[in-house]
């Protein structure tokens, strides 16, 4: 019988190696899946992992990589703070929407004025919008001990209704011939978030994501607040003993993740998306939960996980288009990646032993 023995302490080596093992296992199992579907597995894996970065059309895909990874990383960094402390914000998608609405609203309110201060004001409004939306579950939890998972998740659907109402009503483009959706911010220079270097996909949101990675790293490794976050997640009783105020931590963690999700929404609406529309949100807030866990809730891990997941999205789309792979096969492939990452995680804390069965 195979037995799992708990290691006396987590293995650093295995914690570092397991993501690579998981990617290799995903390629093997995914390749088998694609072969079973009658496609050339090597070509499929190459289309997903290699072509977007080094292939013939990489000049197009590379830019897409940062555009997709930026918001994922920005949101996931915020979520990881709460997740580390055992505070589960599942509603980043809603905070992302509300941040986008608030930020775009401020920008559109100034239309057609020009001024350097408009975009910074929008950034502040976007962060505030996400923050306030996240304060609803935070205050309900600290005051009435409601479950933040349910409240934050249900508020996503409220935010979606709010988004529909805004794009049909208050923020609708008056010159848009009655079509739903706001003015296009890309065509309004003072409120737009352009590509900073042509062809890279780099916009202010990506810059913010990189900054968030660095700040989160410093916070978690060098600052008392980060220490308290980690301590609360690992042993809540020890955290109380160490003087951590649980309610304050709930407000800080939910607030930070809401503000970062709001920022991601603002940068998206003023950049790649361009306008508030009914279907503006595309699930970044939910995918970021996966990114946070793929990255082991570690800032650098999240950076890499965000890039990897963006790669599988872009490569997956390419494989669908070029190889006629069914979309569900691509989704299964992405699911495998998550599955293997979580499954091999056990090796960091446990080791396998072959052992004879013993009378209970």
């Amino acid at each position, binding site marked *: 019988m195979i037995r799992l023995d708990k290691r006396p302490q987590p293995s650093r080596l295995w914690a570092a190696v397991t993501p690579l093992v998981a990617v290799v296992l995903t390629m093997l199992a995914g390749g088998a899946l694609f072969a079973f579907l009658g496609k050339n597995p090597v070509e499929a894996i190459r289309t997903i992992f290699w072509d977007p970065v080094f292939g013939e059309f990489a000049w197009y895909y590379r830019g897409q990589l940062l555009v997709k990874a930026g918001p994922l990383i920005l949101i996931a960094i915020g979520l990881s703070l709460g997740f580390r402390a055992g505070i589960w914000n599942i509603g980043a998608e809603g905070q992302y929407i509300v941040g986008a609405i608030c930020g775009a609203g401020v920008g559109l309110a100034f239309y057609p004025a020009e001024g350097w201060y408009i975009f910074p004001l929008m950034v502040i409004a976007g962060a505030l919008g996400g923050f306030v939306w996240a304060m609803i579950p935070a205050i309900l939890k600290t005051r009435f001990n409601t479950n933040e998972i349910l409240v934050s998740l249900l508020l996503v659907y409220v935010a979606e209704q709010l988004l529909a109402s805004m794009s049909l009503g208050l923020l609708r483009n008056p010159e848009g011939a009655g079509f739903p959706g706001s003015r296009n911010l890309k065509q309004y220079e003072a409120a737009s978030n352009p590509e900073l270097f042509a062809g890279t996909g780099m916009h202010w949101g990506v810059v913010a994501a990189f900054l968030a990675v660095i700040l989160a790293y410093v916070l978690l490794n060098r600052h008392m607040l980060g220490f308290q976050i980690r301590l609360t997640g690992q042993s809540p*009783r020890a955290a109380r003993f160490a003087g951590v105020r649980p309610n304050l931590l709930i407000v800080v963690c939910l607030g930070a993740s809401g503000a970062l999700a709001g920022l991601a929404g603002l940068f998206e609406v003023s950049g790649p998306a361009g306008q508030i529309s009914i279907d503006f949100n595309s699930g970044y807030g939910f995918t970021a939960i996966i990114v946070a866990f793929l990255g082991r809730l570690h800032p650098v891990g999240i950076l890499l996980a965000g890039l990897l997941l963006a790669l599988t999205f872009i490569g997956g789309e390419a494989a669908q288009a070029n190889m006629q792979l069914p979309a569900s096969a691509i989704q299964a492939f992405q699911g495998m990646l998550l599955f293997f990452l979580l499954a091999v995680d056990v090796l960091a804390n446990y080791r396998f032993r072959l052992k004879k069965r*013993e*009378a209970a």
Partner: protein
Amino acid sequence: MNEVLLSVEGLTKAYPGVVANDAVSFQIAPGEVHALLGENGAGKSTLVKMIYGLVRPDAGRMTFGGAAFEPTTPHAARAAGVAMVFQHFSLFEALNVAENVALGMESPPPQRQLARRIRQVSETYGLPLDPDRLVGDLSAGERQRVEIIRCLLQDPKLLIMDEPTSVLTPQEVGILFETLRKLQAEGTAILYISHKLEEIKTLCDGATILRLGKVVGECNPREESARSMAEMMVGQELHTPSREAKEPGEVVLDLAALSVASSNPFGTSLRNVHLEVRSGEILGVGGVAGNGQDEMLAALSGETSAPPDAIKLCGQDIGHLGPNARRRLGLLAAPEERLGHAAAPDMSLTENALLTGAIREQLTGGGFLHWPKARDFAGRIIEAFDVRTPGPENAARSLSGGNLQKFVIGREILQRPACLVVNQPTWGVDASAAAAIRQALMDLAAEGAAVVVISQDLDELMEISDRFAALNEGRLSAPRPAQGLTVEEIGMMLGGAHDMEVAHVEA
């Protein structure tokens, strides 16, 4: 005693990385009370689990009543006539005594008949127990009687008892010992596991001493001193904690009518606790587990808050302050539960040093952590308190219980507290580490700190305290000088602090 009931020869059991039992041999005669002595981790539990069929030995053989004995399940062991009372009870609180007993039997008789037998057995052996009472309403001592009667109904030839007195008051210990003597007179052999040497001296006819999985000696406890047996257990001369007697100084900690509701629905709320602890003094707080010890520690550490003037430190109201504000003022605490309360299991010792040391040792600046200083502080604890670990980067959970306890206590002592509160400082700690911790607490008091030691180990409290008080159902008895207290007086305080308080009010 030439007759042999149980004979164990060369029993060996290895686990990955450790040999729990290495060729252990001993014998028990019918009607003998035999003690199994050893420090934590010496292999006592593994040995009795093999006898009770819970663990299978790798090598060696046993005979029971002359026949080969290889129990593969507890069921087989019970069928052969071996019964065991565990340290932790397995009872359902919502069922009554008779129902609980029936659940442990192979083929229980009808309830009414069973209740009659329970009454009969409890009268025969002097174990007062009403079969119709709910287990949830029983004290720890009464719950233990349910377990014992459950065993006695099987007419065992050998009764194994694992640390039976750790939850009992002295009076209850007396009742238990009477019962065991009656059983002994009827020819039942008893295998008695304990580390309380005085009990073993009064009760046992023979003792086998284990150290690191090996038998290191056998003795007749009646002919040995507690000290000589302890030294056999530890394998070295035991250092008895000692200090110079000193006049106590100013009042450091002052509790006035402290009442705190327990945060745990099954906890015990503190009721109207009055207490003064002076500089240079150790106050021992005794009591059976679950009478408000955890709540008292939480109220003093600042994890639960109280009215400001209910707790005073050096004359200053601190009842409303949180743990860190109290640390800043010099009130430090070390909770009972090492892993998960006093220390975070998966964090390194450096991080655990930071857990309580950040403020007084100035391990942070402007909110940012000084890792080198924290590492240095952890290193100082490890060195000063002889914590056996490769280094401060190791996770807390990789340390043995005794080493982690030395680290936790050392962490607080090195911060030079004005007042230190510890709960169960030597629980589950081997004898030499326990002696080191007690000595450190006494040295701390000698340097002028006020020390409150909450413990269930009365021997420990009598050894180190200047004054002794008892917690009973959340009430604290009036402290009395520890010197000269008799076992009867302590038992009265433990069991009757509540009654004494009422009498006091009426007088």
